[in-house]
């Protein structure tokens, strides 16, 4: 097992050199409503966890190169388009969403571990710092918490 920098990991993943890839994965509904990357090969962007680089290449090149993905990959791609076109929370949306998750679990291209907690650090001199709801990239980290009104009491 080798500890590498994030850049090295991303680069090795992109050039299809790794046997097993490991990284954080998962998004809230609010993000999935606008971004399809978790549902189409290679199943995320350059920065994040991917599987099936050559499936992604096949789709990006309309089959000119790469490896044709299995049928379940196409079914998930079709379903994310339907999911994003439906009103979140509606029966239609929930039905499509359940079908997508069934597909994801059945194919198990990504294996989950433990949903955890993580630390948030702030100096006590930093004022107007409110408690975050999550420690996550989703919602773009500090963006909901209005850092423009932070100030330093030094």
């Amino acid at each position: 097992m080798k500890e590498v920098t994030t850049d090295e990991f991303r680069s090795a993943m992109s050039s299809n050199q790794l046997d097993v890839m490991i990284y954080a994965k998962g998004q809230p509904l609010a993000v999935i409503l606008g971004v399809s990357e978790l549902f189409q090969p290679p199943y995320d962007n350059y920065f994040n966890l991917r599987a099936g680089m050559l499936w992604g290449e096949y789709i990006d090149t309309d089959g000119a190169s790469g490896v044709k993905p299995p049928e379940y990959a196409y079914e998930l791609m079709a379903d994310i388009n339907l999911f994003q076109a439906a009103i979140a929370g509606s029966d239609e949306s929930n039905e499509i969403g359940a079908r997508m998750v069934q597909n994801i679990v059945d194919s198990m291209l990504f294996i989950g571990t433990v949903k955890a907690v993580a630390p948030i650090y702030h100096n006590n001199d930093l004022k107007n710092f409110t408690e975050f709801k999550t420690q996550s990239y989703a919602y773009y980290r500090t963006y909901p918490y209005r850092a423009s009104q932070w100030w330093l009491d030094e």
Partner: protein
Amino acid sequence: MKVLLYSGVAFVALASAASAAVCPAVTVGDMMGFEAGAFPQQYELAEFEALGNCTVEFSANPASDDLNARIRGNGPLPPLADRLPSEPLVVAPYDSIGSYGGTLDALSNATESGTSDFMSIRHVNLVRYSDDLQTIVPMIAKGWEWNDDFTQLTFFLREGHKWSDGSPFGARDVKFWYDNLATDSNVRELPKDYVLVAGEVMDVVVIDDTTIQFNLPSPKPGLLSHFANHYAQAFQPMDFLGQFHPDIDPNADANAQAVGFESGYDAIKGYYGNSDWMDTPTPMLAHPDLVAGLPADTVPTLESYIITRENTEGRHLVANPYYFQVDTSGQQLPYINEQDELFVGESEVRLLKLINSEVDYKSQALNLDYAPLLLENQEKGNFTIELKPEISIGAFAFNVTSENLAKREVFGDVRFRRAMSVAMNRDEINEVVFFGLGQPTQYIAFSPTPSFVSKELEMAYAQFDPDMANALLDEMGMMDLDGDGMREMPNGEKLVLNMQVATQAVSIKMVELVGQNWREVGIDKR
């Protein structure tokens, strides 16, 4: 036409009734009897003045001129009234009206590595998720409007809003971003899926200077949510970047060549990169040989800070003197004058700097492994640690399109992937790595788990069942042929997993435990 959420404009007429009384400096913690506005914790100016029958008197950071002088390419500052939009966003601070000054110290891993946490501090987009993570609120746009079938989304921008160099911001900057950057194959080989609707491009129409309309080929109600949570900013300065874009300026190539770039698109990439990733190195780092002859050190921004120095060791930023927000007392935001970002590649050194209180805020790349030491040093170091739930989880993926065809066959067999899943002892991982604070789960893409996902699906193949793992591997024909305790692939070749761990996102301790679990069912790793 259905109006779903639309702030600001309706209040303009009411503003004329405002008296000369100065508005109270309300905070979220002390509203002084002031009514809430249409959206939590913030107001449009006219709305705020109408609600309080009062007037906001604007004031600027006394250091604005000095900070502005450090933004190469900026001219002298006009008065604050000419820098703010005529419709600034009024922000109610959480606890207190702030004082100007200071430098926010931050820590990232390296250029474009572990930096999004710090970038989010200055981030802006058309809209934003409020801190309840449910309510979308105005930001760069003061309001928006959907049509009935979610195929047309119109944003209303702020009159008089300006870029960090004082040039006007408007609807054409949104269209420029979409037409000339996000969907221009000379800039970006393929458009990102978030600028498409079911794989098709949108038609972005400038209605007038402050009204921009996204016409969608099919419904996508989540497009608004995208503009609230994504790093990709839906605007770029057309006047500045357009001088180098051949579709905007016929002299683009000549303009670029005059300052040392090979072509207009080369200059676009020099300032913008080839994606919406806001961490693309500025010319200060990417083109140090050219930067002195360029019109500015970095592209103008609407963010609260702008980069004034960048090298391989870190970045320094100053407050944007044209930022569009004021607090309820009328002080232009942000309060903090400067930001300093230091790059430290080694996680142990980053931890030491946190313990030594050399940092004002950090969450990205802080694994729970760090928590005991950080918690122990809180008081001494004058910092606070809060443990909060993560959204993403550590996940493993096997390379189903491996260049090695024997491995491709093994990894491509779902029985192998299920075996590896049930071979993991998630309860042990939870106890050892996450101090029992986590929740074992399968990967289901959505997090938190939505109501349409059953508990069975959430935990499918997440139980610890080495017997099932062994049976699945046996069934695949993966046996230990040479008696070393490790299984070979069905073709008889040895299988030794090449595992690399980037600790920015996952704990190496967790990966070690999983590797050990896999060895216990005969799958070797190195």
